[in-house]
């Protein structure tokens, strides 16, 4: 390949040209995903924002960690691109503030870094709630592909999810169908909340594995099946959780 000396562009799910931006379902319609770019270097922030706008996203810019936190409190973005090194706060501090007690941050965060580290340093390796890491200078197509990937896997909603007679509140370890409490272990409960939060959508098995079991490599499929079995058994009524062959599972609210 003649391009072997440059960063390859033809890997992962990148197709040629600008891919369509991810649109998020919202009721019956959909909205353009809103991204927040955080970088203290104004030109870098603007250039990054411009690339994303041209790809069709709505983009907001924050010039410091503090400003980023203010923006998030005012309006939650669908995804944050966060510079690792900033004068007022570094990325782990921003992540800690965003989490502030919650188990997970409610939207994906991709960290952009100019510095790479030895694996043993654990500077980037510490699990602070970031979805992905991208080294600065990575090609536009790769950046956009990673953003699309992260948006598709956005976090399950925090707080209670109510779908008809079903109420799931994984944060407080509770689920009820009408007045009847459901006895679910933590992971089945998280999975039910995730599926219910995306009612009507076929959620891939691999996504459930990632979000509920963490980032372990494949091989946990049987536990996923056990969890689905437990959820169905506790619901006692058929129809709430459909199996979508070859993909995963879909939540269907029952009257």
């Amino acid at each position, binding site marked *: *390949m003649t391009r*072997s*000396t*440059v*960063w*390859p562009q*033809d*890997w*992962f*799910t990148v197709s040629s040209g600008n891919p369509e931006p991810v649109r998020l379902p919202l009721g019956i319609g959909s909205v353009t995903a809103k991204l927040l770019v955080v970088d203290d270097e104004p030109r870098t922030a603007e250039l990054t924002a411009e690339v994303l706008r041209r790809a069709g996203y709505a983009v907001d810019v924050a010039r410091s960690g503090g400003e980023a936190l203010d923006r998030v409190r005012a309006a939650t973005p669908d995804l944050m691109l966060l510079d690792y090194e900033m004068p007022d706060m570094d990325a782990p501090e921003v992540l800690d503030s965003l989490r502030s007690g919650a188990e997970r941050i409610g939207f994906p965060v991709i960290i952009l870094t100019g510095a*790479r*580290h*030895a*694996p*043993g*340093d654990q500077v*980037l*390796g510490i*699990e602070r709630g*970031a*979805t*992905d*890491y*991208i*080294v600065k*200078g990575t*090609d536009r197509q790769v950046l956009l592909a990673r953003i699309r*990937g992260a948006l598709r896997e956005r976090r399950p909603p925090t707080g209670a999810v109510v779908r008809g007679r079903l109420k799931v509140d994984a944060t407080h370890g509770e689920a009820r169908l009408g007045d009847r409490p459901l006895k679910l272990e933590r992971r089945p409960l998280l999975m039910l909340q995730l599926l219910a939060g995306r009612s009507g959508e076929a959620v*891939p098995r*691999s*996504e459930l*594995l*990632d979000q509920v079991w963490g*980032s*372990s*490599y*494949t*091989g*946990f499929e049987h536990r996923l099946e056990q969890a689905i079995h437990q959820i169905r058994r506790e619901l006692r009524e058929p129809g709430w959780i459909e199996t979508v062959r070859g993909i995963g599972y879909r939540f269907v609210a029952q009257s």
Partner: protein
Amino acid sequence: MELAIDSSPRAEVSAAAHRLRSTLARLKAELELAEADGVAPPVQALIVGLREALASLTALEDAAFGLAPIQVLDDDERLAELTARSLRRLGYDAQSGRSLRSLRPREIVIFDLGLTAGLGAEEMALLKSARPIVVTGATDSAARAMAAALDAAEYLVKPVELDDLAAAVARRIGEGR
């Protein structure tokens, strides 16, 4: 982590630094010439040159920090990407896919044995030359024979924890080509 620079990584650091400097010097010369002639610089050549420079910088960091580029191959592309993402968290330049790409210098391949059936002779030879880290759901003798046929450096049985995968990658980097 201490930067243990023995002769081999040191030679790699030196070679990558040399490439980086050469490329940057060429780009500087292009820009100076354009400025002296009062013409627009050759934008396309500059973009290509800058990509080369970034690739050299990546190679330099890899050699200095004991990292290597990685491609993760699995028939479930999304799982491959999640694994690549986990490796990126550890500092590796990890990419994912469902089929083997041409190898970058020092690239490590993590290969799901389930993909073996779809390999052509050329890909098989390329994969063998990479001495892949094989991941498999099967532990039977056929799987072990296949791993041996691929000249696998490591043989990991699913489910594979990230720590074990990272340890296998570190050992593979330590071995060299």
